[in-house]
């Protein structure tokens, strides 16, 4: 293998977290190589409206996504089932190319509430330890909301988030979310405009005694210049948002927040179409260190990139995969209960109820985060015992919301699947009558972690480099079914009170279905923890077992919250990087004593 000249740091993956790492390290004067498996993508020329407004290409054919041919996982529901490859893009959609999944995200940019970071102790204190089934491994985070708050603030200002504060330094503000943790400042931009459907939701929710507020949106509501001097323009609600790149410089992404600055920094070399296949390791025990990364470039040439520090910044699954194939950290063994890499994998329980209204909407007008939210049923914002919750109480919760993303025509013409797929005269009737009159009330439900839900290496199937595929063992458990049913019941209450006729509901009954797109909110597998026996990384993202490897992204989350993850991905990364530049760079060592 040929060697490249050594650098201070190598970044594996140049998406939401990778660009933040590059910005912080080049600002500190380091030499940095960033490896990105996909192509360069930029607002011009890749995201022009005349290119992007193509539902077939970018939704049905996944034009901006990692396709299984390039990288995939195997999937099984239980440890006794045989995992089979995910052959087509399915339940989640991982972005390919510079910017990663932060190119095609919807832009719903929520902070987690303070209780999310102390989930286990909060629910134990409130309801007793028995609320946690024996197999549930959800735990407190290592970091607290108060520690993260300045970094949430900074990330939201980089992204130009449009929103309405609900709590500034303890002062509750009407129209915002009264359940949110105290903020040090307002959102950098005022909330997005509303449309008829979001006004109806807001009015009904208020009549029900709930506290609706506008979704914090990573779409600029006005012209904006971020602290790095990168500019955004106001959103025009074209409706091609989630699943697409934004050609209008309106949706926040690495391209509209950090990339223009960081690409000019002399310390950075970005190598696209370059796949990091393995982290090189040396030493044993306390002397275990990474010495660099092996990668394969566009010409199929294998290279060694020596580096003092390795930053693992790919998508959740790919972070865990790279650690496992490299022997970085100890793989999780669910039977013995040992090891950390692959533990506490979780997804998101996304439910919904669809309604038909007399009113006409224009559902093609929208933005990925144009919506109204209620947080009254999230986390521990409500009493999880009777009378509100009938039956056994559950851990977790979620928000209930109405979004008008911009519904495209192919998706709006598909009803049911398999034996229940609608066709014929009934399909034609639904196509003709429902599109302009339908709205969806949805729930973004938390997902707890479990002993037998995890990531490891598949024994059978290989990727194009001959590495074992990552194996996902996952199903929806009774606690999370109860939570989701409760949340979708609330969706039904609100939708009916808005005047809608219920068409159908989906709370994810039964087994997890890999074929049905849900969210790209996969998390865990390399989780943060206060002590080395409870996770893979410390609260700064530094591996307990290999102190010169830093792992950023939702792979740090010990379980998933009832919210979209990106704001917390950004905040935890900035929080970790601050400590890296302040303490690790002058004196490389574990940042938390073991």
């Amino acid at each position, binding site marked *: 293998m040929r060697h490249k000249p050594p650098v201070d740091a190598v970044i594996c993956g140049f998406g939401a977290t990778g660009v933040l790492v590059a910005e912080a390290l080049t600002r500190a004067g380091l030499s940095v190589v960033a490896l990105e498996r996909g192509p360069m993508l930029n607002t011009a020329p890749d995201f022009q409206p005349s*290119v992007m407004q193509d539902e077939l290409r970018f939704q049905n054919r996944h034009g901006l996504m990692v396709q299984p041919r390039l990288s995939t996982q195997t999937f099984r529901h239980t440890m006794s089932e045989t995992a*089979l490859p995910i052959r*087509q893009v399915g339940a989640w959609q991982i972005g390919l190319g510079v910017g990663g999944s932060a190119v095609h995200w919807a832009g719903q940019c929520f902070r987690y509430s303070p209780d999310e970071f102390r989930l286990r102790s909060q629910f134990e204190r409130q309801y007793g330890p028995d609320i946690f089934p024996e197999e549930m491994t959800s735990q407190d985070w290592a970091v607290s909301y108060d520690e993260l708050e300045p970094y949430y603030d900074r990330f939201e200002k980089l992204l130009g988030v449009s929103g309405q504060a609900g709590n500034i330094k303890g002062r509750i503000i009407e129209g915002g979310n009264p359940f949110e943790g105290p903020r040090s400042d307002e959102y950098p931009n005022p909330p997005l405009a509303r449309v008829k459907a979001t006004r109806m939701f807001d009015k009904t929710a208020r009549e029900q005694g709930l506290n609706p507020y506008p979704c914090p949106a990573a779409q600029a509501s006005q012209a904006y210049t971020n602290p790095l001097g990168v500019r955004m323009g106001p959103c025009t609600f074209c409706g091609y948002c989630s699943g697409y790149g934004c050609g209008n410089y309106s949706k926040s992404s690495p391209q509209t927040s950090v990339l223009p600055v960081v*690409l000019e920094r002399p310390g950075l070399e970005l190598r696209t179409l370059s796949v990091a296949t393995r982290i090189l390791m040396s030493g044993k025990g306390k002397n275990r260190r990474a010495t660099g990364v092996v990668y394969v*470039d566009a010409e199929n040439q294998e290279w060694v990139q020596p580096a003092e520090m390795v930053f693992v910044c790919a998508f959740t699954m790919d972070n865990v995969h790279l650690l496992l194939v490299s022997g970085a950290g100890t793989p999780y063994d669910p039977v013995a209960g040992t090891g950390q890499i692959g533990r506490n994998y979780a997804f998101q329980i996304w439910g919904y109820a669809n309604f038909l209204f007399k009113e006409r909407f224009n559902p093609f007008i929208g933005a990925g985060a144009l919506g109204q939210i209620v947080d009254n049923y999230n986390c521990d914002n409500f009493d999880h015992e009777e009378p509100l919750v009938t039956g056994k109480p559950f851990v977790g919760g979620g928000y209930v919301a109405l979004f008008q993303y911009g519904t495209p025509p192919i998706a709006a013409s598909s009803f049911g699947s398999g034996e229940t797929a609608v066709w014929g005269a009934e399909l034609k009737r639904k196509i*003709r009558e429902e*599109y302009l009159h339908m709205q969806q009330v949805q729930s973004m439900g938390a997902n707890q972690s479990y002993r037998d839900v995890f990531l490891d290496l598949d024994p059978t199937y290989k990727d194009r480099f*001959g590495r074992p595929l990552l194996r996902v063992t996952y199903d929806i458990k009774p606690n999370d079914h109860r939570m989701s049913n409760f949340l979708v019941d609330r969706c039904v209450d609100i939708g009916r009170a808005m005047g809608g006729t219920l068409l159908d509901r989906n709370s994810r009954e039964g087994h997890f279905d890999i074929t049905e797109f849900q969210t790209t909110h996969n998390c865990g597998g390399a989780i943060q923890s206060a002590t080395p026996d409870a996770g893979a990384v410390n609260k700064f993202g530094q591996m307990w077992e290999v102190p010169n490897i830093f792992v950023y992204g939702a792979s740090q989350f010990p379980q998933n919250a009832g919210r979209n993850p990106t704001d917390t991905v950004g905040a935890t990364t900035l929080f970790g990087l601050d400590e890296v530049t302040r303490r690790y760079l002058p004196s490389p060592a574990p940042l938390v004593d073991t």
Partner: protein
Amino acid sequence: MATSRSFPPETEKLGPRWGLTRRAVLQGVAFLFAAAGLPRVASAITRAIAPPPLQKIGPLEFLTEAEYAFVAAACARFVPADETGPGALEADAPRYIDRKLAAPGGGAAAWYMDGPFEPGVTTQGWQVDLTPAALYRQTIPQMNDAAKTRLGAEFAELPANDQDAFLMSMQKKELDADGVYASLLFAAMLGDAIEGLMSDPLYGGNKDFIGWKMIGFPGTRYNWLPWLDREGEPIDLPIVGMYGTAEDYAARMRKGTGR
């Protein structure tokens, strides 16, 4: 250290070798996969920054006449023409399907198709060692044989109510057998017919915006700000797609010049 700018040289160099073939452009495949020979090559990906060009409808590209008759008959039942207007057949959905199946990899260029293949459970997704093109090719004759046995004629020759009953049998897995993936073909055809009815006309279907008129979609517009406050009132603008109005598409197609 040296900085790679927005367009790393390797990307440009790859253009001719790995870049867009005309066929791939026509199919609207955003990122291509050089499947043969060099499976490890990361560069089997490239950026594709233009929409696929318009292509005049010509001879069938993949389906045989007999296969086309089957697909066309199914499309006519999936979204039928009736007193409210035309359906999926009239929108040229079968021509869209023909083009899709003619694409590199038979519509599965982007899929993971390494073995071993095991049936698994339905919630584990597609686990059959067939591309969509191979599924159509293998299953349509099997279905025509079944139609002759059960109803006395090939599917396309049956009266509409018999066609509906037959399609229902396919959907309900009644015709599935060892090596006969009737329900899989049903699901693939229905999904493809809806794509052909509702995708941008540049892909060969949605002729004259039949699909978008049917559903009430006003087309792909860049700026809806003026309509935000108008409380869902009808849009009094012509329907436009990636290449403009229906007249623009028709004119370009007549000339056959693509862009």
